[in-house]
């Protein structure tokens, strides 16, 4: 079974709200940098940066955005086929003393964010690290929480949440699959 949970306009509204919350929480955008976690955290980070720039004209959206590939920090490398390593690019000013907002599409077990925090530690010493996600589907396995959430989405563990974005997939949508019919299956 497939269901579309968020459409394009829902995603746009959620991101706009998060952008405002980021500015609000940090009393402006002067020390904000955004780090997107590939693949889909990256376009989300760019969209957030543009929205922040729309409110705060001094904020250079392109220069304040980076990509944080966390492959080499994962704790499950030995349980999966070898992953390709993506690029990590930092904002021009680096991470030292900045407020780093990590951006990802789906917030699930927390292990990705744990890896990202380890990676950040090797790249600089930010003033603070905050987390923005489009969807929080629950089932945390580590004591990690999000600061900014687009949509809280209660799910079963067997379900699969897919975030589709214009930049990577040609459309904006959040879908959930495997609901109900997987419940009776033993895996």
């Amino acid at each position, binding site marked *: 079974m497939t269901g579309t949970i968020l459409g394009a306009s829902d995603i746009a509204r959620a991101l706009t709200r998060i952008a405002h919350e980021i500015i609000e929480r940090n009393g402006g955008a002067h020390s904000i940098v955004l780090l997107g976690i590939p693949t889909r955290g990256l376009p989300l980070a760019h969209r957030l940066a543009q929205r922040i720039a729309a409110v705060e004209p001094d904020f250079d959206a392109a220069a304040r955005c980076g990509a944080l590939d966390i492959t080499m920090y994962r704790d499950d490398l030995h349980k999966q086929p070898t992953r*390709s390593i993506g690029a990590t690019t930092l904002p021009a000013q680096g991470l030292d003393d900045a407020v780093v907002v990590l951006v990802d599409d789906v917030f699930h077990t927390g292990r990705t964010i744990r890896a990202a925090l380890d990676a950040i530690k*090797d790249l600089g010493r930010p003033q603070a690290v905050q987390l923005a996600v489009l969807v929080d589907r629950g089932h945390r396995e580590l004591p990690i929480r999000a600061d900014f959430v687009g949509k809280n989405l209660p799910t079963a563990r067997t379900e699969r949440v897919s975030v589709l974005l214009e930049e990577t997939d040609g459309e904006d949508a959040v879908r959930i699959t495997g609901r109900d019919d997987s419940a009776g299956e033993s895996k």
Partner: protein
Amino acid sequence: MKHLLSTQDLSREDAIRILDTSEQMAATQDREIRKLPTLRGKTVVNLFFEDSTRTRISFEAAAKRLSADVINFGAKGSSVSKGESLKDTALTLQAMGADAVVIRHWASGAAERLATSGWMYGSVLNAGDGTHQHPTQALLDAFTMRKHLVDSPTGSDLAGLTVALVGDVLHSRVARSNIALLKTLGATVVVVSPPTLLPVGISQWGVKISHGLDAALDEHQIDAVMMLRVQRERMTGGGAQFFPSPEEYTRMFGLDGDRMRRLPDHGIVMHPGPMNRGLEITAEAADSARSVIVEQVSNGVAVRMAALYLLLAGEEGVQ
């Protein structure tokens, strides 16, 4: 990938994946903290039956920067020098829980033997076997060429480039590894060597052959010239008679400033080291702005990090 034994085993996609991974590894080496936790808990054994401090420390640095534990096992002063067989050494390493063995051996095929004989189960990384292969050297050479000579390197091969390998191809594992990899990546290879230092059957290798560096420079637009090390003693001593004298070799095959200036403006000068200055290459060529010889060394660490990552990071038994 389970093992890295020969560049002949690499498809174009495999090779590009290693080079792309190397790029990311190289990027991490510009950071203040260069150590990554990726291979924490893995054990890499450097098993060197032949002295090569350069290669050993390059692999050691690569493994350590990925947080692997490194055990150095040199032939000298160990049980190996007391006549222990490769098999018994392998069984010992297996018992010690080696996840990967980086092997340098004087015998061609030793790495493949270690990987396929059932003596041990870990990954085997060939760091040079006799006169056969030295795949990470070829990969770091390709990485260096791609970086300098290809407009958008990531994801690209070396199509359209012409690379000259100059010197002793017969005894060179560097040449064998490079020729196979360069062909896979779409480059044209020109081998420049006296006929005495070419293997029988090279006409079937799919390379262009030239018997003088001047002729090669006349006939080809060479984007990268790679000088191979000449082992002086081996070449003219002991009745080997591969060429009459070092002086004659230098006259016909040495790279000096004048010959270097006949390369196109973007052309680069390479050497796998260690160099015989004054024999195959002059100081002017080796130290010129075109020379990427020192950079080859630093790229070696990134390429070896990539190889270790691709062999060791994934699930066991999954490609």
